[in-house]
């Protein structure tokens, strides 16, 4: 009895006598050392020869003789010849002359169900074009939003494109830069699996077999779970990536000054980072705050993208140092940001006001008319409400319109004064005047008529000031005033209540200014007469 060993060669399995094995091994070693100087080419030659050896050895196996004997090996070696017998002279002069033939010609498009998420279409495309399948996955997801095109396309490809089933197909799917060792490995793996299954089966006994059945069932269930898990993880990865990319793109656009990405939301129209940080513009920490904000927003976005990629690529790399650094940076930015906000808090919260009083040229007009002028120019104005703030927004000129508050009081002297008090929030102390100057409210006097604008128009970029104006008209005692009807819209609450009440509407009728405010002239006259 001879001892036999098992060998893998050229993708096949053989039982071989020990002495024959030693002989064969020696032969292969001699080949290897001969071709070693030629690197990859040498390896390929060896693999091809091994393939041939396997073929020849297979011819030696018969029904009755399962193991390869030393005579068989000697015959094979004689057929192939010793290295010295090869008609072959060194190819050193040609080692630099490398392959440039077209790999693609050998490629075929198969679905790759080994690295699939759904049907392996993207993986197959990736293998075919030698591009990471991730891009195809993203493209499919992206196209899915275009009337479901991606889903349709995917479904069609899934149905039409065959699955790479055999080793050769799998290799063709990936194209040609394939060494025999790859194919050998995959074939061997398959063979081993097959053989171990056979071995398991051959261990007779029903108990054993049922146990195997159970094991197989468990394995199948496990595989299904793994598939589902893989799918979910993949989806999360895609979502992370898509979200991260959208945020990143949005942020870049915002930083570049494209502020209209939020579409028709009047409220958001004006918010972009640099504008937002105007609130701190006066503090001298403007850039520090902008940088903090960018870091605070950017790091999570990049992290999101990174995680997405990691999940999709199944990367297990752990850059502990990097993670610690990024986390530290983020926390530092947060601390700095909070500190700066606190430092700038007082100026941030301040409401600033500026008053401009004008004495209106006063001849003795027997009657003064107060009228409201529509300064919207018939533009459409939409009203929005954000928290407690109401915005009247016109898309046409991208301006916010707010109503001034009007109060009519008695003048301290004989003069007629009109003062406009402007209020602005969040402008801080240093540059408040600059910001107040940006609040322009118009009024006009034409002879005895004073026109005041119905709206204060503010550029939507300045929305964050929450600007408002208070118009104060000081009227000397006993001056006759006639208010137009729409003055009521602007009157401050208290006066609105008093002058525009349904029972005692003062508008359109001559009134006079008294110590107690406006009264109807006829009533005042009546009282005067009664007193007399």
């Amino acid at each position: 009895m001879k001892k036999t060993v098992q060998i893998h060669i050229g993708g096949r399995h053989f039982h071989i006598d020990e002495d024959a094995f030693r002989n064969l091994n020696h032969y292969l070693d001699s080949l290897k050392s001969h071709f070693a100087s030629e690197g990859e080419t040498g390896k390929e030659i060896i693999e091809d020869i091994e393939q041939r050896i396997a073929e020849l050895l297979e011819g030696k196996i018969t029904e009755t003789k399962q193991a390869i004997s030393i005579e068989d090996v000697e015959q094979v070696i004689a057929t192939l010849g010793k290295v010295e017998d090869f008609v072959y002279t060194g190819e050193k002069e040609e080692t630099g002359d490398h392959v440039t033939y077209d790999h693609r010609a050998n490629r075929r498009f198969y679905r790759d169900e080994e690295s699939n998420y759904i049907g392996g279409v993207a993986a197959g495309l990736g293998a075919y074009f030698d591009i990471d399948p991730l891009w195809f996955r993203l493209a499919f997801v992206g196209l899915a939003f275009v009337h479901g095109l991606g889903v349709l396309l995917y479904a069609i490809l899934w149905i039409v494109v065959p699955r790479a089933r055999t080793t050769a197909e799998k290799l063709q799917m990936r194209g040609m830069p394939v060494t025999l060792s790859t194919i050998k490995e995959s074939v061997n793996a398959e063979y081993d699996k097959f053989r171990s299954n056979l071995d398991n089966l051959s261990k007779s006994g029903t108990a054993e077999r049922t146990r195997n059945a159970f094991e197989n069932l468990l394995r199948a269930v496990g595989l299904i779970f793994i598939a589902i898990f893989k799918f979910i993880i993949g989806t999360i990865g895609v979502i992370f990536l898509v979200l991260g990319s959208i945020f990143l793109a949005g942020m870049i656009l915002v930083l570049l000054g494209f502020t209209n990405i939020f579409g028709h939301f009047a409220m958001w129209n004006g918010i972009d980072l640099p504008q937002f940080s105007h609130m701190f513009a006066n503090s001298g920490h403007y850039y520090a705050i902008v940088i903090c904000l960018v870091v605070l927003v950017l790091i999570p976005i990049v992290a999101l993208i990174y995680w997405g990629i990691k999940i999709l690529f199944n990367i297990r790399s752990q850059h502990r140092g990097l993670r610690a650094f990024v986390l530290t940076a983020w926390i530092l930015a947060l601390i700095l940001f909070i500190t700066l906000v606190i430092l700038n808090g007082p100026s941030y919260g301040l409401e600033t006001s500026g008053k401009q009083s004008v004495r209106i040229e006063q001849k003795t007009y027997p009657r003064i008319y107060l009228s409201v002028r529509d300064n919207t120019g018939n533009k459409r104005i939409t009203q929005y409400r954000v928290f407690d703030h109401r915005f009247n927004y016109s898309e046409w000129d991208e301006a916010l319109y707010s109503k001034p508050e009007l109060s009519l009081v008695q003048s301290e002297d004989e003069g007629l004064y009109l003062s406009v008090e402007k209020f602005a929030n969040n402008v801080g102390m240093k540059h408040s005047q600059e910001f107040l100057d940006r609040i322009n409210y118009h009024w006009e006097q034409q002879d005895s008529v004073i026109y005041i604008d119905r709206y204060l128009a503010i550029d939507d970029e300045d929305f964050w000031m929450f600007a408002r104006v208070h118009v104060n008209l000081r009227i000397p005692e006993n001056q006759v005033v006639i208010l137009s009807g729409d003055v009521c819209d602007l009157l401050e609450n208290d006066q609105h209540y008093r002058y525009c009440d349904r029972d005692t509407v003062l508008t359109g009728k001559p009134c006079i200014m008294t110590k107690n405010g406006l009264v109807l002239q006829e009533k005042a006259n009546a009282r005067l007469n009664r007193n007399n």
Partner: protein
Amino acid sequence: MDFENAKAQMRKGVLEFCILSILSRSDAYATDILNKLKESKLIVVEGTLYPLLSRQKNAGLLSYRWEESSQGPPRKYYVLTDKGREALKELESSWRELIDAVDSILRK
């Protein structure tokens, strides 16, 4: 005088020519090529073929594809490239020239 190297070079050149012309008829895997070469007694030891194939492949004269086989693992089928076809044409004409030349000398 050592003729071994001259003989080897001659054989090698002829073998390469023959491999190309075998492949020009149809794609083949190594064993097919071997069988044809052995039929015409051009090759003594099979091992000779593989380095030559590999050399020609590296020179861009051949490429290969994997093909499933009914028996055993997939086979490497060699295919003549356009460049290989051109090389074959050139070799063919120089082969004829050579034969004529050698013949004319030997006949004298």
